[in-house]
């Protein structure tokens, strides 16, 4: 009887159902687990939004067409969050630390431009943070060039002829949003499966599983399936936020579905492995967060890892997170972040999943209780 597939499938389903039912009784933890990844998405988005544009006060002492054109050039530089103010108000803002710079367009701006005379645009910078300061230092000359290129196209003889690799630009938030989806999958998967496995040891209920004649494979798969179903909840929430609120619409829905599920399998296996090895929930929770965040930053979350240093590239390629970001960026935006191709990256991920499942079953097979 024990070799019958039906029996093993029954064990798989029983373990999954039991873990699901147990999680539902611990509602607070389940709700928190569901929303931790969403919280992360919001947090990272805020981080990016806050850091993308420097708040800049503009004092328009001249309202002429050239002055207005210069203001337009600044607003299109993707570096400023502009606010037109009076000189007094601008001074107050920069003194109070509420603006990074004050740009003053002088009263004779238009007149001097018309007469082809030098114009001095006064820029007062709060150089408290060099990241913002350097943004301003780079963006002001860029704005001047843009202004001249538009106002006097005949005078500017050097121009840029851009050839894009992809048919559309991918903004920072949509790129990062996909990376955040990966970390959300990772954190949700690790937390759900890790705590579910550790709980069995913590409450000694592992004895019920280990004392049964059921195969360790069936128990492993069943436990992973239970966590998988729960992780799916947080995944759906993150996907909805990403698609509906952030506006990142996938280019290939099938790839999104397939790679999301494959990623969940990998993370649930790692979580179950962690829970089985550590056997208590608190360190599993700490470790899940402790693993997720460095891997997120390491694996090309903010931009292609190929733009990074060779050492970081080598380290990133050790972990599946890198490949998951690659395939999901392809699924959402259609671009390739490495040269392995979609199938190559997929095969690597499937390999990770298979090895991890074997490790997990072996860990449970060897599991004994001390006493």
């Amino acid at each position, binding site marked *: 009887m024990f070799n019958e597939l039906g029996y093993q499938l029954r064990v798989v389903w029983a373990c999954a159902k039991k873990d699901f039912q147990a999680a539902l009784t611990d509602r607070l933890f389940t709700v928190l687990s569901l929303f931790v990844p969403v919280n992360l998405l919001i947090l990272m988005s805020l981080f990016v939004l806050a850091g993308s544009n420097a708040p800049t006060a503009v004092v328009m002492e001249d309202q002429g067409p050239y002055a207005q054109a210069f203001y337009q050039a600044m607003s299109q530089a993707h570096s400023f969050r502009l606010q037109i103010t009076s000189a007094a108000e601008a001074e107050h803002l920069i003194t109070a630390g509420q603006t990074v710079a004050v740009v003053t367009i002088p009263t004779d701006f238009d007149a001097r431009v018309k007469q082809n005379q030098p114009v001095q645009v006064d820029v007062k910078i709060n150089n408290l943070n060099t990241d913002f300061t350097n943004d301003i230092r780079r963006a002001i000359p860029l704005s001047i060039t843009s202004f001249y290129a538009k106002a006097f196209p005949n005078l500017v003889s050097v121009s840029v002829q851009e050839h894009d690799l992809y048919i559309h630009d991918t903004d920072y938030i949509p790129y990062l949003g996909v990376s955040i989806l990966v970390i959300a999958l990772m954190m949700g998967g690790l937390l759900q499966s890790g705590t579910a496995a550790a709980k069995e040891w913590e409450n*000694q209920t592992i004895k019920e599983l280990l004392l049964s004649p059921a195969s360790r494979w069936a128990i492993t798969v069943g436990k992973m399936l239970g966590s998988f179903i729960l992780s799916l909840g947080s995944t759906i929430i993150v996907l909805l936020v990403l698609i509906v609120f952030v506006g990142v619409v996938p280019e290939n829905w099938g790839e999104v579905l397939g790679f999301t599920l494959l990623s969940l399998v990998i993370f649930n296996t790692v979580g179950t492995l962690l829970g089985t090895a550590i056997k208590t929930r608190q360190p599993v929770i700490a470790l899940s967060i402790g693993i997720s965040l460095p891997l997120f930053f390491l694996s090309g979350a903010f931009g292609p890892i190929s733009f990074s240093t060779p050492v970081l590239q080598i380290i990133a390629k050790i972990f599946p997170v890198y490949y998951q970001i690659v395939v999901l960026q392809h699924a959402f935006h259609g671009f390739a972040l490495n040269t392995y191709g979609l199938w190559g990256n997929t095969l690597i991920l499937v390999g990770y999943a298979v090895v991890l499942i074997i490790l997990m079953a072996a860990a449970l097979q060897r599991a004994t209780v001390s006493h």
Partner: protein
Amino acid sequence: MTNSNVASIEMVHLVKRFGNFTAVDDLSLTVEPGEIFGLLGPNGSGKTTTVNMISGLSAPTSGQVHVMGHDLRTQTRQVRQILGSVPQETALYEELSAWTNLDFHADLFGIPSQEKKARIESMLDLVGLTDRKDSRVSDYSGGMKRRLALARALLHDPQLVYLDEPTLGVDVQSRRAIWDYILALRQQGKTVLITTNYLEEAQELCSRIAIIDHGRLVALDTPEELKQQFGGSVVEIETVEPFGMLAELRALPGIKDAQLEDQFLKVTTQSGTNVVPQVINLAAQCCEIRDINIREPNLDEVFLHLTGTALRD
């Protein structure tokens, strides 16, 4: 494969080490079919480690275990199918209901779906938990949890049931109920292995007892034989003034041991002798007697004698 001629459990030179610590040290014993066998020992003596090895929860460092003729190393699954276990900590899913716990167990042990409901109902009825079947186990008392764990262990109709400290932390009423269930198992022909550090429990339930201490087998026999080995009778005499003829008393033939503590004299006689009247006479010659109590030795005394320590130390 299993039949009544095969020992229910056979342990041969069983050893379990955790690093430098030897938890079970060359333990060999046999549990016969249909008996209630008790493993006695103080906390940390190696009882639970022994049953963990019998059930396959822990691998022996060396030695062999056969359960109903099955070699535990190679036929673990068969052993698990014929073994019903009540671990010390019950291992129940406390956040789930009694019914869900049993339903999960039924699936794990492959109980046919068409029989599952009736079996669960029958087990809940047996342990008197039918009216609480939908309550969360976390809301149960300690005694109810033990009863539920017993119901779960019996659900797949095992031939061998092991209960690790079955009445630990249980009130007197529940303890009596659990004892009755265990005694009923013997009537059904099942073999029961219990670990306990309650001597009263062992005396009430067990056909044979193995006393282990520091992982070693110290004694193995029926409760009656163990007591006989310890001595024939225990005479406790309380005198008005301290008894002053201890040396003369110890010199009497048939005296195994004599201890004096203030006005309390405790004399253990050798079995098969009739020295009790002489003990009383000697005490009466020396002092005014306030109280006399003559009784059989109890297992506490046997245990103290064998291990040099009280059982619950």
